[in-house]
């Protein structure tokens, strides 16, 4: 009995392989709008998931034939995952991604252009719609804007002492460290290209040029940038920790534990720091030597993109537009604390600082070359922080970004 079964099984396996080989991903036409439709939406956990679910319920109340299904794919993973899941037919109809992935998404052909782009542009913040425009066309629907700013622990530093320039900050930190052993006047995630970019932005120097679209020069090794990064290197004396020890989680934890007086981080930490019991404030970043205005940080727009592989692009676009409405933006703020992408008033003691910084922030470039920026600049920042030759590092960084 057993032997026969084994033999038969062996026969069936090639059959399965054959059958499987013929099963190509079918391309069904989108059904009529009144049929029941389920939209798969990718978003991160820890806030946005609740928002999507609630927004989904509200949407279904308006359009009873559409249900929203939330799937957890983190913001940072979505752009990479859509490349495989989309063609495979298991992708979403709508997914969240940061705007700097736009170039990658468009050149990969994974997203559809925004429907009613002109109407949308009048509703959302100008920075957001610019961020989502690539080669003159707009893609995606902005749901929140963000930047990072200077957090300060009110128990450790008075508002009057808040530094307006980086030099003042360094001086304060050195004095503070000397007076309070075991504590830090200033802490930041030094190996993270998301933050260290501010040191390269002196006097209008911007990554990939003023509009962020110059694919031939990164400006990361320009004279202004080198000067700024040298200042960054000197900051080491105000925060004497090697880069390998100063990771994001360590820096966040230090501020949350009340060990650091100042920290550079973003909105997502507002709730965790509040929960940790820190009485803190948010203000704009200090300015670089020679500049009058706060140093330019990256601003990011989080957008919902309609997948090019979706079977229901129209319904997906409608839901995305719904998410940009005033009601939903307020809801999102209440749940996640994120800055709305539209012009609406939100109630928060910390908003002031972020909005202030947002005036000086510049959107992350979204050209495809941006993908190479992160890894290269992360490593260069770490090496520079640990004392390497600034010019050499930035030259290598530039070469790595532009593709050897």
């Amino acid at each position, binding site marked *: 009995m057993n032997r026969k079964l084994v033999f038969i099984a062996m026969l069936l396996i090639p059959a399965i392989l054959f059958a499987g080989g013929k099963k190509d991903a079918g*391309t069904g036409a989108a059904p009529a709008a009144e049929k029941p439709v389920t939209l798969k939406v990718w978003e991160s956990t820890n806030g946005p998931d609740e928002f999507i679910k609630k927004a989904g319920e509200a949407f279904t109340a308006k359009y009873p034939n559409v249900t929203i299904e939330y799937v957890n794919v983190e913001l940072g993973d979505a752009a990479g995952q859509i490349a495989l899941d989309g063609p495979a037919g298991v992708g979403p109809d709508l997914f969240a991604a940061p705007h700097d992935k736009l170039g990658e998404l468009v050149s990969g052909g994974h997203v559809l252009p925004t429907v009613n782009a002109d109407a949308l542009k009048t509703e959302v913040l100008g920075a957001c719609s610019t961020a989502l425009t690539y080669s003159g066309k707009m893609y995606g629907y902005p749901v929140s804007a963000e930047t990072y700013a200077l957090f300060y622990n009110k128990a450790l530093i008075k508002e009057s002492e808040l530094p307006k320039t980086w030099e003042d900050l360094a001086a304060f930190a050195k004095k503070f460290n000397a007076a309070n052993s075991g504590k830090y006047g200033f802490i930041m995630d030094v190996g993270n290209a998301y933050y260290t970019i501010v040191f390269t932005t002196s006097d209008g120097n911007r990554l990939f040029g003023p509009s962020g679209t110059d694919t031939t020069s990164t400006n990361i090794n320009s004279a202004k940038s080198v000067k700024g990064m040298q200042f960054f290197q000197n900051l080491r004396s105000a925060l004497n920790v090697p880069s390998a020890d100063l990771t994001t989680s360590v820096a966040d934890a230090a501020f949350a534990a009340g060990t650091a007086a100042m920290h550079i981080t973003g909105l997502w930490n507002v709730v965790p720091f509040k929960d940790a019991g820190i009485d803190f404030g948010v203000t704009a970043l200090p300015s670089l030597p020679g500049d009058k205005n706060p140093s330019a940080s990256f601003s990011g727009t989080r957008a919902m993109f309609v997948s090019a592989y979706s079977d229901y692009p129209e319904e997906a676009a409608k839901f995305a537009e719904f998410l940009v409405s005033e009601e939903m933006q307020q809801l999102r703020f209440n749940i996640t604390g994120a800055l709305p992408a539209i012009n609406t008033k939100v109630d928060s003691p910390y908003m002031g600082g972020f909005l202030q910084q947002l005036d000086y922030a510049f959107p992350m470039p979204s050209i495809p070359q941006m993908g*190479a920026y992160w890894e290269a600049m992360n490593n260069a920042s770490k090496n520079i922080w*640990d004392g390497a030759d600034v010019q050499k590092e930035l030259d290598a960084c530039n070469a790595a970004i532009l593709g*050897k």
Partner: protein
Amino acid sequence: MEKILSLDGSEEKKITITASCFMGLSHIVHLKDYVKGIFFALTEVLFIVFSPVIVSKIISLITLGSPQPDLPIKQRSNSIFMLIDGILILAVIALFIVIYVISVKSAQERYREICRKKSYTSQRASITTSFSKAFPIAGLAPSFILLLVFVVVPLVFSICVAFTNYSAPAHIPPNNTVDWVGFQNFKDLMGGQATWSAGFARVALWTLTWAFFATLTCYFGGLFIAVLLKESKIKISPVFRVIFILPYAVPAVVSMLVWKNLLNGTFGTVNRTLMYFGLIGDPIPWLSSPLLAQITVIIVNMWAGFGYFMLLTMGTMTAVSQDLYEAARIDGANKFQVLGKITLPLVLYQTMPLIIMSFTHNINNFGAIFFLTGGNPTVVDSTTTSAGGTDILVTWIYKLTITLLKYNYASVIAVMIFIVLAPFAIYNFRRTKAYKEGEL
């Protein structure tokens, strides 16, 4: 139409030819072996039915599709899917050929058997002997097919990718096509830039060093403890045995994350405790100095791995025949001599293949490095190559694949690892007793 076959063995050639023309033909026509013949014939029919699909997939494999900017993206052909499908079809063809060869051989054997017995076998007898003969095939079939589909095909795919330009930003399907580029990637990585070649050499050298020391420390650490446990007369040694096996029982990822935080030079508990007790003045850069980080990684890996070898060597030691010990004792050997001249050499010899297995495993030991250091700290060439001070080849490949989406470069490195390591494995295999004695 029944041909009368002469049963004196002279028509073997005819049988072979008929069997080769069409599977099962000679079974049905000459050998009166209907069941088997029909089975083989059906397989060939199935294959022929699917042959248009097969041919088209092979063509796609060669061309890897062409850009079709007019079609909406859902309907465009996907170069990578084509590549994979093509390789799968090659595997299916290989399988088909194997079955074909089996059918021909079966026809030949059946003929010889008939000649010997001077009569045709009944259907039932034929089926019974078939099942018996089929056992080795059936036994191997699941492994063979699983390996073919899930190991060989991905491997061939990986090697193929090394000869394409599948990478971000310009060659990610389905919007773009991927093309064959021959040896271009190899040239880039090896000749190209000095930094890349230097980086590659550095990472390769460290990978070998790491694997060597990791295996060494785990093995001898475990052996040392095993000997102590066995020889000592401490009554509570089973308690210690349990304690020592704990790192092996706790999931590695958890322990690595904890170690990572404990060993953080500035904020970690280890340094803070040491400084609290005044044992050190400045924090020890466990994970931030390249050299020290490498040593730390080896030590932490030993923490996690010695338990396994402790159990292994303990088991081997208990399996050593008591007669040897008796003989030694009669000859007047003391404990140390017995240990050094009998136990240890025996244990070493018997576990040698496992040691070598462990070495090759450590060469590709992703988890031990990635979760502890992530490849950090960065070194001079990190900005260009993305390889950190503790990165071994596999973690570097991971970064290249997942973060930078440079699948083609990652594949080139993988191919090179394989070329270097394969001779080791072949050599090791040849040296095993069973192979040498030909008694495989």
